[in-house]
């Protein structure tokens, strides 16, 4: 009797488990699993958004088109330049800022919040502010002229290829620097005081303290932050979209997401856009997998 009741209790609990899980499984199926499977499928067809003719199976030709397309490789190059150009300074400077913040005894919270403040703004607003700063008569030129002792030089922030790419990097750097600083601060905060105190008692100076204690123990955090930044940068869209729709030349800014968007929405070539999405997906999948691996090993144990 008792046994039977226990058994039915278990089944009842299993049933409730499913009841709690099923609603979101439905959403995941409709808006995550189906689209990604469908994306693989669509990338072999030449669907056109406006055409009434049924899409035709074209095999790998969307992919071969892309691999032979100079525009596609340009957008790959743009994305790579943006990613490398953003993530290295971001990681280096957020680490420096975090170490500096943790080495002072007062105003730690203030500095963290101040550096974090730009992350609160939406990316559209961030791009808008910087568009005005990069205006030929704007603050960026004024600042550069004051710094380099020149007068009235226009640094072409929004027209020269190199400067334009730099501009988008500056916007991104500005928006996310505080974010990663705070991540590093919490990483440093997790290092036991006993370790740093022991090093100081042994006569280590700050330089040695950083290279011998803090940095080695922060390696997992650094790795995690690096992969996270790279993933973020690979998906960059808003800044480039805003800058180009404000009249900046498209070619130097045509990153892969912008290219997917334009191919699908302006050229109506769904098949080709999906093929690009799949390629982006494969790259980001690799990075995300790496991130999950890294964050699993993130917890350092301090004996």
């Amino acid at each position, binding site marked *: 009797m008792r046994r039977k009741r226990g058994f039915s209790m278990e089944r009842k609990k299993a049933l409730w488990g499913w009841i709690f899980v099923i609603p979101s499984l439905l959403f995941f199926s409709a808006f995550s699993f189906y689209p990604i499977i469908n994306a693989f499928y669509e990338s072999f067809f030449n669907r056109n958004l406006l055409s009434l003719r049924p899409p035709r199976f074209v095999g790998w030709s969307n992919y071969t088109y892309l691999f032979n397309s100079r525009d596609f490789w340009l957008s790959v190059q743009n994305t790579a330049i943006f990613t490398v150009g953003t993530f290295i300074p971001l990681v280096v400077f957020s680490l420096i800022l975090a170490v500096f913040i943790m080495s002072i005894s007062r105003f730690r919270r203030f500095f963290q919040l101040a550096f974090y403040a730009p992350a609160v703004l939406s990316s559209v607003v961030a791009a808008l502010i910087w568009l*005005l700063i990069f205006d030929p008569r704007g603050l960026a030129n004024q600042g550069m002229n004051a710094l380099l002792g020149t007068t009235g030089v226009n640094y072409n922030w929004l027209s020269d290829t190199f400067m334009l790419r730099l501009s988008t990097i500056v916007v991104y750097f500005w928006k996310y620097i505080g974010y990663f600083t705070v991540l590093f601060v919490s990483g440093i905060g997790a290092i036991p005081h006993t370790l740093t105190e022991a090093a100081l008692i042994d006569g280590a100076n700050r330089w040695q303290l950083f290279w011998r204690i803090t940095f080695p123990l922060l390696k997992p955090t650094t790795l995690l932050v690096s992969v996270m930044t790279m993933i973020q940068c690979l998906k960059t869209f808003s800044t480039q979209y805003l800058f180009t729709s404000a009249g900046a030349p498209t070619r130097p800014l045509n990153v892969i997401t912008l290219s997917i968007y334009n191919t699908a929405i302006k050229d109506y070539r769904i098949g080709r856009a999906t093929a690009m999405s799949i390629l982006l997906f494969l790259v980001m999948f690799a990075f995300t997998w790496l991130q999950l691996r890294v964050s699993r090993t993130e917890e350092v144990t301090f004996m």
Partner: protein
Amino acid sequence: MHLNKTRSWYLEKAGTAFVWLFLIVACALVLIPLVFMFTASAMPARDILRLPYPWIPKGIHWPNFIKGLMGPEDDWIFFRNAFNSLVVAGSVSLFTVLLSSMTGYGLAKFKFRGRTLVFMLIMATMMIPFEAIMIPLYMVAMRMGLQDTYAGLILPFLANAFGVFLMRQFLITFPDEILDAARIDGAGEIRIFTNIVLPSSGPSVATLAILAFRSQWDSLLWPLLVVQSDEMKTIPLYITRYMAETHSDEGIMMAVAVLASIPMITLFLTLSKYFVSKDGLTSATKG
């Protein structure tokens, strides 16, 4: 005592001074664009791009804000668009919390066959970036007749793998004794969930809700795809539209930027601990 003031003592002092100087300069550089946004929003356009930039506005130039609210066609559409943003961000945040905590609870506290598989499948979606599926998703939304509707803006974001993960991790440590005691007292499973589990998940729920709200308030790409009419636009689309149509008036643009940032700045000033909490930070890649 002054024997201690050796070379290393001076080095130490110089180091401290350098650290403070670096932090203060960096802080100023980071805050300058924000100060620019606020000061420029109060100036007429002709002052903003003057050389050198005046920095201190002579009073507030109200026409910037009034025109910013009226919109490019003087129909006060800002309010409608802000309402849309609030509806979308509010519903996504509410339903994400509800769905994620339900799923997290189901996975953490109930044993059933396939539980591990379900969890793995959900975690796998973290590896599918939105940018990679937006075009197929757009086709799905079109087929379901969701373009230009609230449902179209809201539904794709309700299932949130990070949210499920966060809630499951939190609830796995929730004491079983409390749940069993409630069951013995005759409480139904739904009541246990709504009256016991949900209220005690405060901090995780707050982190998740703010995260969802922020990413929707910020969202540009998906609304660009699904929204067609000006009435259904959200704030980021309002800004891009404004920029395309009145690119010349910098004062209005900055006023719009300030208006669009008010909700987030308010949230940040009141709930900053949830913004900079570790959970909220590591999740960014999915936002």
